[in-house]
């Protein structure tokens, strides 16, 4: 299967007044065409920063190094695009929205307050010369036509969420990054949105869902990548992952679900201003020993596997 997005050694640092925050560290990730990849992880681990770095949406104090090569089949394609070095103008004209769509987190702050949903959608459709009409698109995301004529402040959290999803889908981007697309939706609407994303993948699109909703990820994802303290720690096919997570962190995260033990992962994640050299999870890990001072890595070729010296599955087998 072809790789739509090939990320290598991606590092994002933010320069603050007196410190440097490292939000993404040496991240390698292949996103394959037609697949739905779920990126999961604790709050503040760098998931959204990763998405924003690919969209050219980081603030000025961000330093980005590494490579992220976008290869899609855009008809007006000028070949693969290196996203990390792309100029802001290039992002605005040809990449953002058109080739990579983003469903932003916090719809409450993502919508222009002075226009109705219909105006926003129609404008996007016109700019991208789409023939679909706003009502069809709204129906796709489960939004009633009447709700389209409201201003963002008149929408509930769930309605605003569906409107931002419709806006991201309007240009029909080959790659869609959805940052928490199901927050604030009730269960039927969550399922509706997930099915919509799933259908995009089944018809040749590619979707990356950033989510903390593990139940949602289990329902639709082909593959799961777990992020912890700015790095990927596990990246495996979704069915294998949910059957038996390998990384102790992934296992602890799944265990925190209300349907399981409902206990938080003990301890705090490390500060991103002072990341350890070795495994960042070691201080919270029951299996940690002296090996953990050396940083474990994923398979550098496939970007898959588990970055741990004592993965759980191996332990059970051996």
């Amino acid at each position, binding site marked *: 299967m072809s790789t739509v997005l090939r990320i290598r050694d991606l590092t994002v640092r*933010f320069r*603050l007044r007196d*410190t440097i*925050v490292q939000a993404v560290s040496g991240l390698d990730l292949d996103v394959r065409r037609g697949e739905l990849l779920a990126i*999961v*992880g*604790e*709050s*503040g681990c760098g998931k*959204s920063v990763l998405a924003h770095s690919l969209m050219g949406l980081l*603030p000025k104090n961000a330093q980005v190094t590494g490579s992220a090569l976008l290869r899609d089949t855009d008809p007006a394609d000028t070949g693969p695009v290196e996203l990390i070095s792309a100029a802001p103008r290039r992002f605005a004209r040809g990449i953002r929205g058109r080739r990579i769509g983003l469903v932003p*987190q*916090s719809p*409450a*702050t993502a919508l222009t307050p002075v226009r109705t949903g219909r105006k926003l959608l129609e404008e996007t459709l016109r700019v991208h010369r789409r023939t679909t009409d706003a009502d069809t698109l709204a129906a796709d995301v489960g939004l009633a036509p009447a*709700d389209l004529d409201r201003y963002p402040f*008149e*929408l*509930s*959290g*769930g*309605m605003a969420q569906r409107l931002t999803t419709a806006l991201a889908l309007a240009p029909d981007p080959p790659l869609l990054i959805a940052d*928490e697309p199901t*927050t*604030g*939706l*009730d*269960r*039927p*609407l*969550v399922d509706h949105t997930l099915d919509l994303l799933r259908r995009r993948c089944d018809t040749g699109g590619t979707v990356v869902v950033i989510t*903390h909703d*593990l*139940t949602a990820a289990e329902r639709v994802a082909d593959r799961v990548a777990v992020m912890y303290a700015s790095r990927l720690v596990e990246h495996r096919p979704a069915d294998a992952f949910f059957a038996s997570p390998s990384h102790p962190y992934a296992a*602890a*995260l*799944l265990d*925190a*679900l*209300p*349907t399981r033990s*409902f*206990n*938080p*992962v003990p301890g*705090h994640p490390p*500060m*991103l*201003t*002072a990341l350890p050299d070795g495994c960042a999870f070691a201080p919270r890990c029951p299996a940690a020993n002296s090996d953990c001072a050396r940083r474990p890595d994923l398979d550098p070729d496939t970007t898959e596997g588990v970055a741990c010296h004592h993965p759980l599955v191996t332990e059970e087998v051996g």
Partner: protein
Amino acid sequence: MSTLAARGVGVTFGHAVVFDDVDVELARGETVGLRGPSGCGKSTLARVLALLHGPDRGHVSIDGSPIEGARYAVPVATRTRIALLFQSPRAAADPRLSLLDLIAEPLLATGTDRTTGRARARALADDVGLTEDLLERRPHAVSDGQLQRACLARALVHNPDYLLLDEATAMLDASTQALVAQVLIAYQRQHQAGVLLVSHDLALLDRWADRTIDWNELIS
């Protein structure tokens, strides 16, 4: 009786009747879940209960005494007994304040001195699992989950008797959600607080709430 109750409340926006004649009661010490479809008016009801939006019909009462006053000139001593944690911390937090000031602000606004206020804010930040390096940052430099934990600490700063959570853990990862639940359950035990959980997450309500109200039962 120690309850926060809405009696026959109704809210109308323009021509749209959001809901009418709704009765709901939250006693101290209990955790009540409220579930309902997206956009049905759950958040509006939470705002009414939090005394942020005056109902067009009916009234809200605390411990049996109705809240009086045109358009909610509610005394500070009453207002601080109820705290609301919003769905979107990004929209709720003042972008100009550091997380520490965000947490301390309600105390400073009611006359606590800055040193005491900040010390209390620091202790609360620790309770909700915010590390020291985050406290001097402003909202744009932290994640939604971290910001929501700061908002939780802010909500607890006046030791409220009633806590209303409007989908407040929906944007949190499983571990942070469990942590917030732990903090709140501990707080509730200590203060005998009444907690209202507005949520779509049935698994969460099953696990956390003593009883769950379905929106359809409220309006029928």
